[in-house]
């Protein structure tokens, strides 16, 4: 054995020692396995609520008979719970039920996200280990923008300002041994002045606390003695992992959004209970799981992607009804687009969450966001004469030129109007008028700069923005080793249905799916999320140093405890299904891959089977596998409640003829020329109907586009599936 092997062996031993400490730490501070979600037996009425920037969407599900009701009310940004309550009143009226009949409310919220985006969070105080006061100021020393990027980059101030950061005299080493004891007297004194300085939340993030958080917990106790009303977040409880900057930042973001989220959730819960009695409120987490209201208030950093997670969950559910297992989702709004990948009816997740320039280590559905939406502004830099679209957006105010609210810059929406995709006599979920003249005027600026026609310029804008979104779709598919041709593409959100056909064409993902109610899909996701619980354990060892039997026993024990918790929530054992997740890597690597394997497959193939699957996936992702040793990093068991199917009552199978839904004829500009087309009222379409492109479908809150040489077919659930006209499924 050479010295390198020794070195790696030594790393490994030390890593194993940390992980052991981590386990002890967890054992001391909380139950292992941790209960990650709570739920209770079904049977009643479930309500999904999604609060967006403009509208609050609701979906009511009756689990007994599978009936659904939807409602849409204006959002009330100053206090979004008002909008929620208005919506509940409306939907109950329409469904003819009493609010008290609703037993569960599932809620996806963007309140945490918006707090970050609008910089409206709490003033956060921070306690670090002595010598680490500047941990957020220095961050990872990274300057974005490539070579010379530093010339124009200005770093934003830390969310916990330096003037509200203090140091504690204490020190843990990497083994979790206190090499400097906590100076309680000194920290009490500094805390007194910090807690009286006007801070609204406190973060305690000490060095090496992932190995031992005793000092963090003690300082938290002292802080609560001094100021019981100021919420305290300790880093090891939010993110019990190595990497001091990431852990500190994640915990500071938790503190930053906490007062706003707490206030919102507790108000909402109070109001709901007043109207509905003993109702259970659950909040959708970034990773697509559900969180109790209390946990949501304590760890709001896990809600940063709650909104988009609802969309993905909704897409997942609708796709299942349509029997589509693999799909890419594409949620296009006014300023940005979220994309995600679903494989085998499971959404891919990752270990970090990003909102604007804030990155935290909290698990989330792997949603990539690009700054490309209906409001994205097109421009031509003088110097390069390139056509650029976004990331600047006209937002809701002044909005696209076509909305006649004072916007003058050309946007993607304006381009859609110019080309006839967004008919100027259609309504946009309200009373918004669309002016084609204003759209043409603004897009003319681009046309002039490039010396092309206004139609060519508009089509160029659409192509560029589609390309930007295509880049995001590649990040979640090809970059992860998936071939988009094996996936369907679902477009939703305000602008998704307008672009989904063109994008499917770009990445060859068929069919392009426009779900029913593309504007309320998030609420579907909220309401239909499966009850799920998982139990996990970090366990670092080389495969050659352990056995199938030992790992099998550990996984079984994890499964048992995860299943027990789910049973307590009222899910009968026969309604549960379980699978194992094994985190594994080549020893020496920093990353790890998660292998999903069923208990039956594990019993048959053992660890050799896991290693084989890992090699295969490594090769798929990175084009190579190594002959290095395999190292297990963590074990997890996921137990889920049975899937409930809520098929919307069908309107019966109709013939292929869709002419009954035609509203008027129109002209659309695609691929360089004007073509005759029809506008359809989507509400009048029936399952089985075929719509030949080019065509525009309008409905309450959305407009869809079917391109020429493509066909839209309405499926039994009400999805419009778009296929190329010569595709076998279109004939």
């Amino acid at each position, binding site marked *: 054995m050479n010295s390198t092997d020794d070195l790696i062996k030594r790393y490994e031993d030390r890593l194993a020692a940390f992980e052991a400490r981590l386990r002890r730490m967890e054992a001391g501070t909380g139950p292992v396995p941790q209960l990650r979600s709570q739920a209770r037996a079904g049977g009643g009425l479930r309500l999904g609520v999604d609060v967006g920037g403009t509208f609050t969407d609701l979906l009511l599900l009756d689990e007994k008979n599978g009936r659904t009701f939807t409602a849409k009310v204006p959002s009330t940004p100053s206090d979004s719970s008002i909008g929620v309550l208005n919506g509940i009143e409306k939907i109950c009226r329409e469904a003819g039920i009493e609010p008290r009949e609703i037993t569960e409310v599932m809620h996806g919220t963007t309140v945490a996200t918006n707090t970050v985006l609008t910089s409206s969070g709490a003033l956060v105080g921070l306690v670090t280990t002595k010598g680490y006061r*500047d941990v957020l100021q*220095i961050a990872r020393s*990274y300057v974005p923008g490539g070579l010379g990027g*530093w010339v124009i980059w*200005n770093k934003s101030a830390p969310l916990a300002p*330096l003037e509200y950061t203090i140091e504690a005299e204490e020190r843990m080493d990497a083994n979790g041994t206190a090499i400097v004891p906590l100076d309680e007297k000194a920290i009490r004194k500094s805390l007194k002045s910090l807690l009286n300085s006007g801070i609204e939340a406190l973060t305690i993030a000490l060095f090496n606390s992932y190995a031992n958080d005793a000092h963090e917990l003690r300082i938290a106790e002292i802080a609560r003695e001094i100021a019981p009303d100021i919420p305290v977040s300790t880093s090891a409880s939010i993110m019990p992992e190595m990497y001091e900057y990431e852990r500190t930042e994640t915990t500071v973001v938790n503190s930053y959004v906490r007062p706003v989220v707490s206030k919102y959730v507790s108000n909402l819960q109070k109001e709901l209970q007043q109207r509905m009695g003993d109702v259970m409120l659950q909040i959708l987490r970034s990773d697509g799981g559900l969180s109790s209201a209390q946990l949501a208030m304590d760890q709001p950093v896990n809600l940063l992607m709650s909104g988009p997670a609802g969309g993905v969950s909704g897409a997942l559910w609708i796709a299942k009804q349509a029997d589509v297992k693999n799909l890419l989702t594409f949620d296009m709004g006014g300023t940005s687009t979220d994309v995600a990948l679903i494989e085998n009816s499971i959404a891919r997740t990752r270990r970090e969450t990003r909102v604007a320039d804030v990155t935290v280590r909290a698990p989330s559905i792997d949603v990539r966001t690009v700054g490309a939406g209906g409001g994205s502004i097109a421009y031509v830099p003088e*110097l390069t004469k390139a056509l650029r679209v976004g990331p600047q957006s006209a937002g809701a105010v002044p909005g696209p030129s076509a909305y006649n609210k004072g916007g003058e810059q050309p946007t993607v929406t304006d381009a859609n109007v110019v080309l006839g995709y967004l008919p100027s006599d259609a309504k946009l979920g309200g009373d918004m008028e669309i002016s084609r003249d204003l759209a043409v005027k603004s897009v003319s600026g681009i046309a002039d700069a490039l010396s092309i026609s206004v139609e060519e310029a508009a089509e*160029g804008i659409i192509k560029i923005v589609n*390309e930007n979104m295509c880049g995001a779709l590649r990040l979640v598919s090809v970059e992860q080793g998936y071939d988009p041709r094996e996936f369907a593409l679902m477009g939703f959100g305000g602008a998704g249905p307008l672009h989904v056909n063109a994008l499917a064409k770009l990445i060859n993902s068929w069919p392009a799916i426009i779900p029913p109610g593309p504007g309320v899909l998030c609420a579907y996701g909220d309401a239909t999320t499966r009850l799920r619980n998982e139990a996990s354990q970090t366990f670092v060892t080389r495969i050659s140093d352990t056995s199938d039997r030992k790992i099998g026993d550990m996984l079984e024990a994890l499964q048992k405890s995860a299943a027990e918790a789910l049973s307590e929530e009222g899910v009968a054992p026969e309604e549960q299904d379980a699978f194992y997740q094994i985190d594994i890597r080549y020893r020496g690597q920093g990353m790890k891959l998660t292998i999903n394997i069923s208990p039956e497959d594990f019993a048959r193939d053992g660890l050799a089977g896991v290693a084989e699957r890992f090699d295969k996936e490594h090769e798929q992702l990175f084009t190579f596998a190594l002959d290095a040793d395999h190292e297990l990093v963590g074990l997890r068991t996921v137990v889920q409640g049975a899937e409930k199917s809520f098929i919307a009552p069908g309107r019966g199978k109709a013939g292929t003829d869709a002419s009954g839904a035609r509203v008027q004829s129109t002209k659309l500009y695609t691929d360089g020329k004007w073509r005759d087309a029809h506008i359809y009222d989507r509400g009048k379409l029936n399952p089985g109907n075929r719509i030949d492109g080019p065509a525009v479908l309008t409905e309450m809150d959305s407009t869809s586009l079917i391109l020429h040489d493509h066909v839209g077919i309405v499926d039994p659930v009400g999805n419009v599936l778009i296929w190329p006209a010569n595709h076998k499924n279109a004939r």
Partner: protein
Amino acid sequence: MAATIVETNTKPFNRVQVDPITLDIVENALRNARTEMDAVLFRTAMSPGIREQHDAFPMIANQEGKMVVGQFGSFLYGFINGYDGTIEDGDIFITNDPYSCNGAVSHLNDWLLMMPIFHEGKLVSWAAMFGHMTDVGGKVPGSLPTDAKMIFEEGIIIPPTKIYRKGQLADEILNILLHNTRMPEWNKSDFFAIIAALRLAERRVRENIDRFGADYYISAMWDMLDRNRAAMSAIIQMIIPEAVDGKKASFEDWIDDDGMGNGPYKIACSLHREGEIAYFDFSESDPQSFSSINFLLNEEMFKMFFGAFTINLFDPQILFNDGFYDLIEVHIPEGCILKPKKPAALSCRTHMLGRIFDLMGGLLGQGAPDALNAAGFSDSPHFMYSGFNTQGEWYQLFQIGFGGVPGRPAGDGPDGHSMWPAFTNVPNEFLEAYFPLRIREYATIPDSGGAGLHRGGNGIVIAYEMMEKGEISIHDDRWLTYPWGVNGGEPGMRSTKRLVRKTGEEENIPSKCDRVAVEPGDMLYFNTWGGGGWGDPLARDAELVAMDVKRGLVTPEGARRYGVVIEDGEVDTRATRKLREKMAADQVKPLFNRGFESIEELKGRCKKETGFEPPVAPVFRRFAQAAE
């Protein structure tokens, strides 16, 4: 002797008209491909240098070898012209020899891999990437000996070699390479990670050709090169004044010493424009050094530095490429410290490489004072710590330090950040987990950033407590000369290194030193330097200065450099006004404030200020090229 490109399909490409929209789409597709190359590399590499610090750089070039996307392009053309052999589908080339790729990589630690991409029997593109290997053999762990006199002391030298031949790995060659490093497992994994990134680029290029057709794809690349050329032509004319009566801008800067007691070494450049063409002339730079601080600067790479540096100001979204190279003439004389002759040692070129950016900033700023930045953290200083621990196991750490970004027209310089693209620091918890050391302090150094209307970023202090007997090496600079301020801004603070022995003895140790023995409990304070200030410090809002004081970035005493008097943490308005009036009366606002009058004057106070004897003026000697 140029390489023979073996193509089974000899039909030439047709240059076709590409509409501007398709062009932008191809540009985006290539931009995405490069991002993906990075992502693949960082996830699969093992060495902290690549995995955590991101010391690796990808590119995609057209079939002629011109970089279309990337940051360190331009060497392929020279490689293709200089390689004596065939280039075939499935080949991948490796080299780390600066002397046989005209400085495409500038020391042996950087392994450069180049892959021709074929489509239907024709060469359509190139993908290339290089990454810093933790160790490539040679006389010291880390392979960066400051005192090397010849490149042969710096590790194994790999001339351009087919490491894959028609798709087959030449595993025996790879074996030889790996047997010559102290960290074979890391190198091996990093090697395959780079290969994976290249393969990904290959897939993307082929997809693009399938989508648009080869002629469109190739033409789009040409168009992108032309577009850059047009943009850069405008920029050159905007920021470089035409030479009137032969008047040229010129600027000089220094590397303080060579680690062997000699210095400072001057690099100097003059700049002027004649019509469309800009001329950079390095003739006044010092000759090459006997130690390893030489930097083999590829002329094309310098053009790229220049382009990247300036274009960011005008269209940061542009995909930067090689298209404008004929607009720039660069002259570097043979045997100069920027073009040393073989076998000059090169491993510690990091200081010179960084200093080039200060030099360029000072040079360009004279033509465009609004775009003038102060001198920043123009270096990637090294810290190395290695030895056998008490269990007899080998440990070896290589780390890069970060410092102050300068004050800029855009605003204050960030504290303790990187001026090198993509670099990040290694988390200290990671270090403590994997290496026998503790980081007792990791903080910015108050007042180390130069005062100015826009403050220079602070340097940082890293206090390393050694836990095992071993050796440390340090390669840093700016311990003697200062990072200069501009437009009235003041210089930043110098770097220092202090070793506090467990026994209580303290010593300042030199900025460049190798193999200093350390004992458990010894503490090294590795203090980096700050960025220079930009603009008149007396014009900075006093409340902003007070905020910096509250944040611990400036001390109350340091606030006086801004003419601001702080009393009990708040601005003393009256005293501030008085102090500012007094300072304004004596103020001179030079365009550049270097903090010294002449090198002689600076040397005269060296001992007093730094504790070290001043370096001796280097004596230069002629070098003949060594036999190949």
